[in-house]
Every structure is written in structure tokens, then in C-alpha cells.
């Protein structure tokens, strides 16, 4: 016997279904795992359904939902961070000191020489991405991948514009470092293989 859905469930489906693939994509880039991504999206939907009357009135549902999902993601990270030791970011500065500096989003570091090789870059970027802090993945994915403006990204993440700029700057710098490190380790590995074959 087919299940009978409530009119609220049908309306919820109609409002959210088209957004779920994008929400899933964002969540995957933040978490890096299909299981965590599915959990995150499921938790988002579970929290949104009771807010159906409010959802009906939201003009741009996707950024709103992304914002809620980001909050859930951050809460989950906080719960999972059992260590009292503060995270040291890519800049080597603990915590968010200096986050409010109104930095321009630009990077001084030169690109690694062989990053011009797009195939090689594509291969290494996945590993480098996995080495980023979650907060760096979030700003890079929202701004550089999905094309949200800095202002929109700041609204989603719920921090001042200056913080998003500095976070993005650090994220890009760190990503470059990881790509360079990946390039160097690959080069070292090649040398070692070469040495052992002699």
C-alpha cells in the first residue's frame, strides 16, 4: 500500500528538492566524506521541516539554507573538538587573532612552477584540499568554487567581511603551500625511486 504523505511533506519536498544536490555538493566540500555529508544534509532537512511556514516566505531559499547548514556544521565541529589545545592555523597564529584586519584578498606567494601543468594540478588539488582546515574549505568553496561574493560568503558564515577576506587570504596561501609540499614530496619520491633503481 503506498504511503500517504501529508500536504506539508509534499510542500516541503517541492520547496527543497531542487536545492538538495547543491547543498550536498557544498557539504561534501566542507566535510570531505559522503557519510558526513549525508548526515549534515539530513540534519539540515530535519531542522528545516518544522520551519515550513517560514520557508514559504523566503525568497532566496538556497543561501538561507546554506547558512543554516553551516551553523550545523560548525556546531558539529565544536562538539567533535575535544582537545583543549587551540588550533594553529596556516599563518601560525593561534585562533582568529587578526581576523578582523581588512585585508585585500590577494596572495603574494608565487604559484609553484609546475602548477601550470593542469593535469598534475588537478591530481594534487584533491590531496591538498583534504589538508585544509574546515573553515578554509568553507570560504574557498563558497567564494572561489560556487562564486558567492565576499559579502554573501560573510553573511552565510556569519562573520564580518574583513574576517572573510583574511580567512580567504589564509586559505589560498595554505592551499598553495600544500600544493608546493605535494609537488616537492612527489619530486623527492621520484628521486628515491630513481636512486633505488640504480
Amino acid at each position: 500500500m503506498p504511503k500517504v504523505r501529508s500536504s506539508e511533506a509534499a510542500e516541503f519536498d517541492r520547496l527543497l528538492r531542487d536545492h538538495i544536490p547543491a547543498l550536498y555538493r557544498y557539504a561534501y566540500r566542507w566535510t570531505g566524506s559522503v557519510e558526513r555529508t549525508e548526515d549534515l544534509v539530513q540534519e539540515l532537512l530535519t531542522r528545516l521541516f518544522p520551519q515550513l511556514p517560514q520557508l514559504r516566505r523566503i525568497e532566496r531559499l538556497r543561501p538561507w539554507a546554506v547558512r543554516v547548514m553551516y551553523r550545523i556544521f560548525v556546531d558539529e565541529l565544536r562538539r567533535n573538538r575535544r582537545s583543549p589545545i587551540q588550533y594553529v592555523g596556516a599563518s601560525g597564529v593561534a585562533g582568529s587573532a587578526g581576523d578582523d584586519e581588512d585585508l585585500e584578498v590577494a596572495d603574494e606567494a608565487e604559484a609553484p612552477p609546475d602548477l601550470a601543468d593542469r593535469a598534475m594540478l588537478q591530481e594534487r588539488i584533491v590531496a591538498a584540499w583534504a589538508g585544509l582546515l574546515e573553515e578554509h574549505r568553507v570560504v574557498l568553496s563558497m567564494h572561489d568554487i560556487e562564486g558567492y561574493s565576499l559579502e554573501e560568503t560573510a553573511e552565510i558564515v556569519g562573520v564580518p567581511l574583513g574576517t572573510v577576506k583574511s580567512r580567504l587570504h589564509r586559505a589560498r596561501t595554505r592551499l598553495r603551500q600544500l600544493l608546493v609540499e605535494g609537488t616537492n614530496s612527489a619530486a623527492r619520491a621520484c628521486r628515491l625511486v630513481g636512486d633505488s633503481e640504480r
Partner: protein
Amino acid sequence: MSNVTDSFDPIRDALRAMPVPEPHPGFVDRAIENASEAAPPVPRRRWRAVTSRREVWWGAVVGALAAALAIVAVLPREAVDRGTSDVALALNESREISVVIEAERELTDARIRIHVTGGVELAGFADQPQVEWTATLVQGANVLALPVYARLPGEGRLVAVVEHGGRTKRAVVDLHVVEVSTTGRTTESQRGSRNA
């Protein structure tokens, strides 16, 4: 001077081309169905089922902490059955919402989660729409005094959830934040829906 923005372009292109694996088959259907079954937007029937089990029940009341215990006793029965309360707040107003958890016995390691949406935030937790902790509930009334701040006009909601032994109970307080104009008249919000 080199164009540093352009130097990031190949990396940005590579980021955009990063593969995203597909979810498990049927995930979208299941996720929507699970969400729809987990927490109905009109909780009347669910709340009745909760109260009938009588292990824990909640009353959501508004008022001063000192009066909360007394308020539980005089809370209209239909308000408890409905499981929701309505509270009107003026923009920028701070108010203490007292949520009363009545436990029939002591419950250790109960997980309590407070979630606020809309233009309302928990005072002192501006960037945290959700606060979660573990506590022991004593037998009888347990009062949570939750200071909320009306940040933006529009509709908001405070949801209190307690989890224990695999069971979950919820209490919902609908919050209506209204702007008060200089003439003292209230106006409806046009911004609230984007700021939940």
C-alpha cells in the same frame, strides 16, 4: 607588478573541477522522507503522544524565573497539550523565557539542546543559534531560564529539545518580533524571513 589574482586562476579552475561523489542511491528521497516524519510542523498529535507517556513533559512559559515554578502549576492545560507557546517581543527587547521540564524521576545525562531561529538570539550567544549540554534532571520541575534578545523584526522560534534513553521531547516557543515605530504603532517585518 604581477597580477596576483590571476595567478590563482589555474588553482581556482582546478578547485571547480574537483569531483564530488554521488550520494548513496535514494538519499534525496530518504532524507526528505525522514525529515518529514521526524518533526511535523504542526506538532499537535505528536505532543499528545509525548504527554501520554508521562516520563517527561515540558511546559513552555514566559515570565520571571522566580515565578516559573508557580506558572507550571497554573499553565492552561491546552497550552501544554499544544506544545507551543506564542510570545511577542519588541525589537531589541531582552526577555527571559522560562522552559520547565517536568521529570517523573531523576534522569542522568539528559542531553538538552536549545535552538533559536529567526531574528532572535540567545543573549550572550550571538553567533550560536544552537546551544547544547548534558545535565541531570531532578525529579519534578526543572527550570531553564533562557534570556533571548530580539535582534531583527519578524518571526522566530525557540525550540528546546531534551534527549534521554533514546527518547526525544521538544517544546516550541514561537516568537514574534515587532518593530515599534516612533508613534508607538507596530509594523510588520519585511526582513525577518532572510535572517533566520
